[in-house]
């Protein structure tokens, strides 16, 4: 992979503070996090992008001599009877995976079957059928975090449209109020008074 300027990858200037670099990294990680692309046919490209972002952040942190490197670990689904089908899905061999899944008799279809069939449908873009299968998988195995996470992510997308609206500028929150009062207190004390006794 060609070496890009790490600051350009994170979209910050080389003079940015550590806090600004961290905020930029967090924003990008939120966008390209593997959880957003679970079973998505573009997951390998998203993974490449995420790797690029992680490397850029690590490089900047190392260059600034902090020594902390961050990274992420994709959750391992563990061993399963459908390991070969999982491998096919991960390799985007959607038709092959679907054919094998459809070959399983109806009576033998467990929660994992419904989850994997849902994953195949999601890769194909058949979102409604995918949702229905994920729902069934979660109903059959309510404690499985892999199925629950996938379902929750889908439900969130159905309500938010998959993006966070840009923050509106202006307005005043609690932090602004406290900051304003502390500044007013400092100015008052410089002039000889004391706005807030305990500060």
């Amino acid at each position, binding site marked *: 992979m060609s070496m890009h300027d790490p600051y350009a990858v994170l979209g910050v200037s080389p003079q940015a503070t550590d806090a600004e670099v961290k905020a930029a990294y967090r924003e990008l990680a939120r*966008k390209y996090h593997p959880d957003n692309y679970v079973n998505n*046919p573009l997951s390998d490209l998203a993974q490449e992008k995420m790797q690029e972002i992680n490397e850029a952040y690590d490089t900047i942190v190392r260059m600034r001599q902090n020594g902390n490197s961050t990274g992420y670990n994709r959750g391992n689904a563990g061993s399963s009877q459908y390991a070969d089908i999982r491998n096919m899905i991960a390799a985007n061999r959607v038709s092959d995976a679907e054919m094998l899944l459809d070959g399983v008799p109806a009576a033998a279809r467990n929660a994992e079957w419904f989850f994997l069939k849902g994953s195949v449908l999601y890769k194909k*873009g058949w*979102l409604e059928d995918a949702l229905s299968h994920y729902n069934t998988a979660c109903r059959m195995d309510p404690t499985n975090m892999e199925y629950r996470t996938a379902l929750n992510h889908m439900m969130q997308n159905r309500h938010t*449209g*998959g993006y966070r609206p840009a923050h509106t500028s202006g307005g005043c929150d609690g932090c602004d109020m406290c900051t304003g009062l502390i500044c007013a207190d400092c100015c008052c004390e410089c002039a000889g008074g004391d706005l807030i006794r305990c500060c």
Partner: protein
Amino acid sequence: MVGYVQMYKPEMKMREYEQYRGVYCSLCKCIGKRYGLPLRMALSYDLTFLALLSMAMHKECVGFTSSRCSYNPLKKCLQCQQTAALETAADITALMLYYRLEDHIRDEGFFGRLTARLYMPIAKHYRRKAQRYLPQADVWFAEMSAAQCAIEAADTCSLDAAAEPFAQLLERLLGNLTDDPKQQQVAQRLGYCLGRYVYLADAAADMEQDGKTGSFNPFVKSCSLNVGDRQALQNCRAYTAEVLRHCQAECIAAFNLLELHRFEGVLRNVLQEGISHTVDTLSQPKEEKRKKSV
């Protein structure tokens, strides 16, 4: 099936709006020059989006220059020098018009069919021309049309199956915008999810009407909708909003992975705020539609 992929002006930067209008006006001129005045009536924001996306994915500079509107010479507008993307969008406009009219002749009521038949001769002429420029695209459109007929004849309840032909068409059209294999994969996914969104948005817009007339509508089928029941109608509208937002989320996930050389703000406005606004409008009852914003 046009009008569902538009900008949302209140959240657009002035610069982005000027770029959007510039491409829209350039597309209008390109259609006029390539096909003639009548096809300019079929100018749409949806194909403007396609032209913008194509320009964004290629390195060549768009080269805006100042010009004047052909309809209103007092009005200034921007003109693009890079015309390849505009020509493709013009050709697809012609193909889309022809196949939409064919669809109307099959499905609409008496007056709908009559109107479609009146426009058909000129649409056929435009289609023949577009076929020479984009033979592969015409084949894709024909395949979509045949598959759509088969789905409607089968009277399926599955939203996914109903949306598949149009989704596949847009998958192919957008995949054709680039030669880079990785970017092609991304563009295809964006095309599939956008095509799915457009088809289902059109179905959502026609839901009430189709419920009354008994025409094929995937939402009426999947919700077993009785349009006389207000609560059921409201529930079905809420469901359509969820389905459309899901398509939107997938479009944005794909869009985030595209390597764009320009117009990212414009395109993001269309996919985020634009689609959200359309979905909000579609999911409201007709009698409570908000006043049109700026």
